[in-house]
């Protein structure tokens, strides 16, 4: 079944996913949604890795390994990011990025 879908389609999906993530990253003010957008971008990269591995080098496993690494790191990163967000909430009573502006200028 996979063979009927060409690599272009899959890359199209991952690109779309990536720019949805970028869009979210740039427009959202809520830190949780920004974190979600970053996860979207990471996952689009995962898709790329798996797709390239499958279509170009089917005899190898490197891409799959990389995507597993990325998933693990994304989990860790999410934990760290949520810890930061909780700290920010405690000090500012808000998780809006615009409220955390003491360091500007």
């Amino acid at each position, binding site marked *: 079944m996979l063979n009927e879908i060409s690599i272009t389609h899959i890359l199209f999906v991952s690109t779309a996913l990536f720019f949805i993530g970028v869009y979210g*990253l*740039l*427009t959202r003010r809520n830190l949780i949604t920004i974190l979600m957008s970053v996860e979207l971008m990471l996952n689009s990269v995962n898709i790329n890795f798996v797709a390239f591995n499958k279509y170009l080098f089917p005899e190898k496993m490197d891409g799959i390994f990389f995507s597993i690494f990325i998933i693990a790191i994304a989990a860790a990163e999410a934990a760290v990011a949520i810890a930061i967000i909780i700290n920010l909430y405690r000090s500012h009573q808000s998780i809006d*990025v*615009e409220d*955390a*502006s*003491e360091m*500007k*200028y």
Partner: protein
Amino acid sequence: MPFSSYILLIPLLPLLGFIVLGLFGKKHFNTSAGNIATLFLLISTALSLYAAYQYFFVIGLTDGRYDTIKVFDYSWLVFTENIAINIGFVLDPISVMMLVVVTFVSFIVHLFSLGYMKGEERFATYYAFLQLFTFSMLGLVISTNIFQIYMFWELVGVSSYLLIGYYFQKPSAVAASKKAFIVTRFADLGFLIGILIFAFQGNTLEFDVLIARLTNIQSPEYLSITSAGFMGVSLLTWALTLVFIGGAGKSAMFPLHVWLPDAMEGPTPVSALIHAATMVVAGVYLVARLFPLFQLDVIALNIVTYVGLLSALFAAIIACTQTDIKRVLAYSTMSQIGYMMFALGISGESEEMSLGYTASMFHLFTHAFFKSLLFLGAGAVIHFIHSNEMKDMGGLKKYMPITHFTFLIACLAISGIPPFAGFFSKEEILLAAYQSNKLVYTVALITSGITAFYMFRLYFSIFWNKETQIENHHGEGAWNMKLPLIILGVCSVLVGFIPFSNFVTANGEIFDTSFHILFSITPILFAVAGIIIATWYFRFENECPEKHSKKFGAFFKVAKKKFYIDELYLFITKKILFNLIGRPSAWVDKNVIDAGVIGSARVTGLLSEKIKGVQSGKVQDYTIYFFVGIISLAIVFLYIW
């Protein structure tokens, strides 16, 4: 080399003493510092006496000529193939003689200071400085290289500065040390330029190579240095004159003498060592070291002669009017160094070329003994009476018999009365002057009369004159203050009998001097006349000195004010230099340089004020910049490149 095994210890022991006492003296050796330093100097003195014996009597002399021996030579900084700064150790008659003089006088002064400086708070520091000075002076006299001599030259300047300013709680001592340093530094600027001319034209910094090249009339270096000129005078004359300015600064020659009388603010043993016997003759030594070059140039020799002559007369006149006993001695030092200088100067013209040179070195040698004796005697007197002023003294002969006796010997020696040391050397100088230049001879003769007068004025004012009642005095001083006086007194009698021309001559070839008994009658008469006048004035307290000084009136007053040279310098520096150069420079500094710096800071500030909005603190703005940057880089790499 039979020398190398031990001879390096002569300068290195004082250096070791300086390092040890300088670093650990205050904590660990505050009471024993004097003994340690004196022991080091004793070893150094013994070694240099042995080295002198070896050099003069065992190996130095070949075919009636003293060789120059380089015991040690190390290339320290190599600039080009030819020009390098070496650190070396040269033995030739004058350097060996100076080794003996420096270590011996320094040892005596170390010994004397044990008593004189006892109980000082910075006792160890004092000895550390003395050791530093001794090391630097030894390094100076053994230099093989004109740059080496310059470095040690500055080092003796620094140690002199430190020792003059030893009592740094006294503002006058601080001012004197600064004055000494600045005046000699100013003179050293001339020395440095002279060195650079020699290095550029002679293409070497080594003394022997330089002298060998420039004394050979066919050599390209000689031709280039004599043909190149500046303001109508050849570069050789310029270089020699500039080097002589350096020497004149150190040796307190007119008009750079102003620092020497003020340098008497230092402890008296220091004055004996640095400002009488060793450092101030460095200028004479320098001229003697470069003497073959001075011989090439009549103008430079004339400058040496007349500056020396003028200083001798000038200082002798001032010495007659001063009332601070150390200042009298300081001016007498300047006068005697003037003798040495003009003796070198006339030596180039006289028929017996070498006589003036030998006489100058001889006088340097004898002067070191009797002048340090005078200073140490004055030190003992000051120690006893706690004052420098003549008016506080008088009738001290019954309180301090040994000081009195040795001081008398030194006064007779400096006045040139036979058979004391000064007579022989001074007679030789006068003879050399008589043979070459009658004007110089006449002035020198008058000066020697004045010398006898002011020395005996000093002697009678301290030890005779009025009776001073002193109660609760602490005696003449410990053995370590009397012994140096006795040693130096014996030396002041005996060293005159050394046949100096058998050891030190301009070209190393020895000759015999005959003793001219008829010739020496006139100088002795002048000296005796000076002594008789002084006796008449100052033997007992009377009104003559005051009455007669009034007769001289204005002249006496001007001489007492040291001919207003200090005031002239202050006028030149404060009024002219500060107003004409200092103030405009300050204005430029404030309004051009500072304004430029402040202006650029202000422009940066304004600019940053304008663009600081870019740093909004919003992460998403930064992300936008980041993406825009990436995309533009991508466009550049994909489409444009």
